[in-house]
C-alpha cells in the first residue's frame, strides 16, 4: 500500500492514477482483463471507438438503462392515454355524432406516440446520468497524450490511485509487463 507522500506526481500535484497507452485493441482488451483479475477495481479503459467486451472485461455489468426505458414507456402510455381520457371525458366533453366520450380506439394513437416519446427521452437522459455526464473537466485531460489521442486513435487504460491495490511502483510494473507502450502519471 502506498503512503501519502507517494500519491504525488513529479510536478507536485496530487496523483489521480496511472494512464497506460496500448498499441492495439487486442493488447488493451487483454490488459484490461488482466488488471481486473489482479484485483484492481477503480480502472477504466478508453478508446475512440466502442470495443466489444472491454467494459465487461473490467467487470462492468450494468443493466439499469433498459429500466429507464421501460419506466419511461409505461409512464408515457399512462400520460398519453390519461390525457386523452381526462380531456374528452372530464375537462371538455363534446358529443361528436353520438360517439362515446371514452372513444378509446382514438386515444390509443396519441398514447402510442407519447409512449415512444417518454421512453426515448428516458433512455437518452438515463444514459447521460448513468455515465455521469456532462463532465467537462476530467483529470485525464491533464495528460497530453490522452488529450490529443483519446478521441482520435489512442487506446488507454487508467488505474486510479483510489484503488485499494494501487501502488505507483507495482502498478506501473504490472502495466509495463502487459505491453503498455507509454505510461503517464495523471495529475488530479
Amino acid at each position, binding site marked *: 500500500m502506498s503512503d501519502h507522500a507517494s500519491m504525488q506526481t513529479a510536478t507536485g500535484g496530487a496523483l489521480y492514477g496511472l494512464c497506460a497507452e496500448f498499441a492495439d485493441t487486442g493488447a488493451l482488451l487483454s490488459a484490461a482483463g488482466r488488471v481486473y483479475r489482479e484485483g484492481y477495481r477503480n480502472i477504466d479503459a478508453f478508446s475512440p*471507438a466502442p470495443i466489444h467486451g472491454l*467494459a465487461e472485461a473490467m467487470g462492468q455489468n450494468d443493466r439499469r438503462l433498459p429500466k429507464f426505458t421501460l419506466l419511461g414507456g409505461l409512464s408515457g402510455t399512462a400520460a398519453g392515454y390519461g390525457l386523452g381520457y381526462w380531456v374528452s371525458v372530464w375537462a371538455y366533453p363534446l358529443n361528436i355524432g353520438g360517439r362515446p366520450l371514452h372513444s378509446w380506439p382514438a386515444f390509443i394513437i396519441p398514447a402510442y406516440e407519447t409512449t415512444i416519446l417518454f421512453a*426515448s427521452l428516458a433512455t437518452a437522459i438515463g444514459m447521460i446520468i448513468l455515465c455521469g455526464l456532462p*463532465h467537462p473537466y476530467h483529470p485525464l485531460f491533464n495528460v497530453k497524450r490522452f488529450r490529443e489521442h*483519446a*478521441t*482520435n486513435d489512442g487506446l488507454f487504460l487508467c488505474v486510479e490511485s483510489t484503488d485499494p491495490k494501487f501502488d505507483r511502483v507495482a502498478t506501473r510494473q504490472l502495466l509495463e509487463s502487459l505491453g503498455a507502450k507509454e505510461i503517464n502519471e495523471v495529475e488530479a
Partner: protein
Amino acid sequence: MVDNTSEHVAAGGSPFLAPGNTFTSITNKITGIVLTKRTPLAWFIGFFVGFMLLQSLMVSLVWILLKGVGVWGVNQPIGWGFAIINFVWWIGIGHAGTLISAILLLFRAQWRMSISRAAEAMTVFAVMCAAIFPVFHTGRPWLAAYWLFPYPNVMGIWPQFRSPLIWDVFAVSTYATVSIVFWYIGLIPDLASMRDRAKNRFAQVAYGIFSMGWRGSARHWQRYELASLLLAGLSTPLVLSVHTVVSFDFSAGIVPGWHATIFPPYFVAGAVYAGFAMVLTLLIPFRVIYGLQDFITERHLNNMAKVTLVTGLIVFYGYMMEVFFGWYSANQYESYMIFNRQHGPYAPMYWFLIFCNGVVPQLLWSKKIRTSPVPLFAVCMFVNIGMWLERFVIVVTSLHRDFLPGSWGMYYPTFWDWSTFAGTIGLFLTMFYAFVRLLPMISIFEIRTLSPDAHPHGHGEEEGAHV
C-alpha cells in the same frame, strides 16, 4: 472499389470502407472537412442558393401573416392546397433518415454507418420545413396553439382527441423530438473528437460544451451502445407510425380518393422511397465536393438505389390498387375519382406522376445505373418530383370534384404558394450546408469500427456483415 476489397475484408476490414484506412486517417479525413480554412467553392455556391431561397420564405411568411392565408390559392372546395402537399412531401423525405439510422442499425447493416449522420440531419431539417406549412396554414399560429396542443388556457378549451389532426400533432412532434435526440446522442463522441482537434478557442469551447466531456471511457461506451440500440428499437415503430398517422389525415375522411385502407402502408413506403431519393440527391454531390468516395462507396449508392427501387415498386402497386378499387368498388364516386384523375383537368399531373414514380425507377434494375452517380442522380430527381406530384394528385384531384357537382371547383397555386415552397427548399439547403460546414457529416466513431484497428488482431469480424 467494389472488387478489390476481398483481401482487405479478410484482414478484418469492411467492404464498406476503402482499404488502408486507420483510426487516424478516418479521424483526419472527416474532421478535416470541418476543421479547415479552405471551404470548397461549391459549398459557397450551394449555401448562397439556399440562403437566397430562404429569404423568399421569410418574405412569404411575413406576407401570409400580414394578409392571411388567402394569399395562397386555397379556397372552397380545396382548403388544403400546397400547405398539406408540401407538409406530406417534407415529412415523407424525413423518413429515410430514421430508417437508415434505426431499422438498418437493428439489422446490423454496416453500410448504414457512413450515411446515417447526414440522413438523420436531413430528417431533422425536413421535419422543420414540414412543420412550417400546417402552422402557417392556421393563419394566426399564435392563436391556434390551443387546438393543436393540450395546454391549460383561459378559455378552458381542450383539443379534440378523436381527430386525426391531433394525432398528427402528437406523431410529428414526437418524431421531431426523438429524431433530434437520436441525432444528438449519435453526435456526442464525434463532438469530442472535434473538441480535441479544434485549434480555434471558440470551436473548442462550443464542441466541448456539446460533447459533455465525452472521453471514450469503455464504461460509457457500453451504456452508450445500449442506449443507441434502445433508441433504434423505439424509433423503428415510431417511423412506421408517423406516415401512418399522416395518412389517417386523409383516410379517416370520407372523400373518394382518400378513404382507402391501403393508405398507411402505401404512405410509409412512399415516404421511404422519397427519403432515399433525397438522401442520394444530397450525398451524390457532397461525396464529390468533399472527396468522400472512401466512405460513401459505390456499394452504398447501389444499396440505396435498391431500397429506392423496392419501395418505388410498392408505391406503384399502391397506384394500381387505387385504380383497381375504383373499378371493383362499383361505386360511382370512387370510379369517377379515378376517371377524373386520368382524364380530368389535372390528368397531365397524374400521368407525369406515373412516369416519374412508375416508369423512371425501372432503370434502377440495371446495376450500371445504380452505381453511376450521374444517371442515379437524374433518376432521384424524377423521384423527388414524382413524390411531390403524388401528394398533389391525392390532395387536389380528390377535393376538387367530390360528391356534388355543384361544389366542384379548381385549384390554382399562386405566386405565394410557390414562393413559400421554394423558401422551404431554401431553409432545407441552408440548414444542410450549415450542418456540413459545422458538424462531422459522417459518423466518425462508427466508421472507426469498420477499420481493422477496432478489432483484436487475427480475429477479424465478430459480427456478420450483412447488406
